[in-house]
């Protein structure tokens, strides 16, 4: 059952009430039209339904979300997938700062660019392995304090003079993996990470995710994988093990 909600003029609390009500009464797909900055869409909701958003949803889209699929036809704001547990968010435009903060499961596919501190403190545990795929470029502190999961940064269609990632990439990282398509200058990396070549297993992982990325956004898969990837991993999972002295 598909339900359409017109979000124009609706406060986020009313909109989210309507969404929760629609899901509770059996909607399997919700189309939200005219979203205009309403926060917390999909926040804290468990299920396996699908929400399509036309317009621009507000911050904390899919925060603490547990299982839904959300597709945003335009841009998203800050904190997409904040502490998300499971599910998928597909954003056709850009996403803002702290996208995927503390994410512990599920997937984010962002076609465009993302802001600062994306994937900060993502973590993995057993079967929960969060993944963020970014089509464009990322701001500074990508994957800061990263404790698990995977970030795939594609850097597609970079304008001349624009760089794929900002400074302090992976600073404080103590788990997980960042794959960057192309090269990244050493000065941009946090001192806790090192660059290695992807293994054949990694290549397969990248190919699978890029294929899905290409299918969501109608991109050419072969064009994307034609350029080699670099793999960023932490030196160890105890970066500050020797910093302290018991008094």
């Amino acid at each position, binding site marked *: 059952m598909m339900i359409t909600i017109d979000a124009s003029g609706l406060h*986020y*609390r009313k909109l*989210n009430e309507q969404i*929760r009500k629609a899901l509770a009464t059996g909607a399997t797909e919700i189309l939200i039209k005219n979203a205009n900055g309403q*926060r*917390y869409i999909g*926040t*804290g909701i*468990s299920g396996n339904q699908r929400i399509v958003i036309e317009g621009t949803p507000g*911050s*904390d889209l899919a*925060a*603490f979300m*547990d299982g839904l699929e959300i597709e945003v036809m335009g841009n998203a704001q*800050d*904190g997409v997938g*904040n*502490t998300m*547990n499971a599910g998928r968010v597909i954003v056709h435009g850009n996403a803002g700062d*702290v996208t995927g*903060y*503390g994410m*512990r499961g599920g997937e984010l596919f962002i076609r465009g660019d993302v802001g600062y*501190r994306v994937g*900060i*403190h993502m*973590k*993995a*545990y057993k079967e*929960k392995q969060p993944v963020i795929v970014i089509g464009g470029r990322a701001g500074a502190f990508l994957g*800061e*304090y990263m*404790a*698990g999961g995977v970030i795939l940064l594609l850097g597609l269609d970079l304008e001349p003079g624009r760089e794929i990632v900002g400074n302090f990439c992976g600073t*404080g990282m*103590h*788990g997980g993996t960042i794959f960057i398509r192309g090269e990244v200058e050493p000065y941009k990396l946090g001192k806790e990470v090192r660059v290695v070549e992807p293994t054949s297993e990694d290549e397969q992982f990248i190919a699978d995710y890029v294929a899905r990325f290409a299918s969501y956004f109608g991109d050419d898969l072969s064009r994307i994988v034609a350029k080699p990837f670099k793999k960023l991993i932490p030196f160890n*999972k*105890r*970066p*500050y*093990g*020797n*910093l*302290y*002295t*018991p*008094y």
Partner: protein
Amino acid sequence: MALSLLTPMFKVERDEELCIQCKVCMRQCVNGVHWYDEEEDRMRCDHKKCVGCHRCVVLCPTGALTVKKYPLEFRENAHWTLDYIRSIYLQAETGGILLTGMGNDRPYPVYWDHMVLNASQVTNPSIDPLREPMELKTYLGRKPKAVEIKNGKLAEKLPPQLELDVPIMFSAMSFGSISLNAVKSLAQAARETGTFFNTGEGGLHRDLYEYGANTIVQVASGRFGVDPDYLKAGAGIEIKIGQGAKPGIGGHLPGEKVGPEVSATRMIPLGSDAISPAPHHDIYSIEDLRQLIFSLKEATNYEKPVGVKIAAVHNVAAIASGIARAGADFVAIDGFRGGTGAAPLRTRDNVGIPIEFALAAVDERLRREGIRNEVSIVVGGSIRNSADVVKAIALGADAVYIGTAALIALGCHLCQKCNTGKCNWGIATQDPYLVKRLNPEIGARRAANLIRAWAHEIKELLGGMGINAIESLRGNRLMLRGIGLNEKELSILGIKAAGE
């Protein structure tokens, strides 16, 4: 290895006439102080390893042991005290940041001890709580400015509240910083006494979900163990911004404490460091804080109060006002004596302000702005006894958090070694051999006893003042007088001097 210049902190004295070489001390001391000399058939000890936790003293069946401050004296020097000399030796040997546990132990003034309570004499009757009704019930949460009654019922639903039978809760201590048996003890004691324990930033162990109605779940910058089940499990949610023992810095549970149970509860890999960033990186302003508060309210369908915990710092009143305006249902303020599982020594001992001042300033500010009803105030970080609780409530608190006091009830002897994970009392450790020393049933009984004892004492003190409900004491600063305080201190505390 180069010679260490460190001298022992404690001297273990054994009465050889009483000692029966039973080796209990040897088995009980995880620091390896005691050992058995087979050749001479006697117990010996290495004073240097003693941390002064008294486990051996308490468990010695013949009472043969005494632990004393090591009698070594440096040449007298008021400026270079033993602590400072010692820390330089340590840092010269290791190059590390000094790390410690528990709260600030420096001799700053304790303002609780500079305030005295009132009692009724002649002009109004005192009340005997043993024979007359006395109300300690406390509700934490946002209160409307006015209520409208229609047909004998509230016209509008009240915002969600936490209902406390006593105005004392167990403050946030994570599973990781303390043992599962310690958390279980507090959870069960909270249920028995009608109050709450707080998960801290360690997630909620599966065995503790049954205590949900008496649980405040914490969301801190590391977001450990935070998932929809966790948020819904508790009766309330607390966003941790800061901690009195370490304002402005994050947390760091070392990998060696992340065993299978901690790993499953925090949802992080075995042996991985659990790093909590200093700030929440989605909160750089009061507006951002509002965003997280309402994110959590949305995630729990507006059914649970959401509070914010901050450390008492210089500008605490303005910050608390911002927190109230950001939509928090309660603000928890942790004073500079608040405890910790691990904090850098210099931060613990030098950052933050006394809770007594912070509380007075916050309550005053919120009243002046006309928003005191919109947020409840919970204070922690130095509450040692029931009189401190009563003074805190008279200064304006709705309830208090106790952490250190609760752990002392479980057996802690304040050796301040929580950070090492070698707690002979089974409290601040994840070593299974040590953890089982703390029986959660006994721990729960002891912690519940403490709460009940304090509740009785609070009633006695209230009755003496002629007050029969804790509500009537809240912010009633006329019940307090200052002793040995200067004008400025009196004015910040908003109290008169004794005799005035």
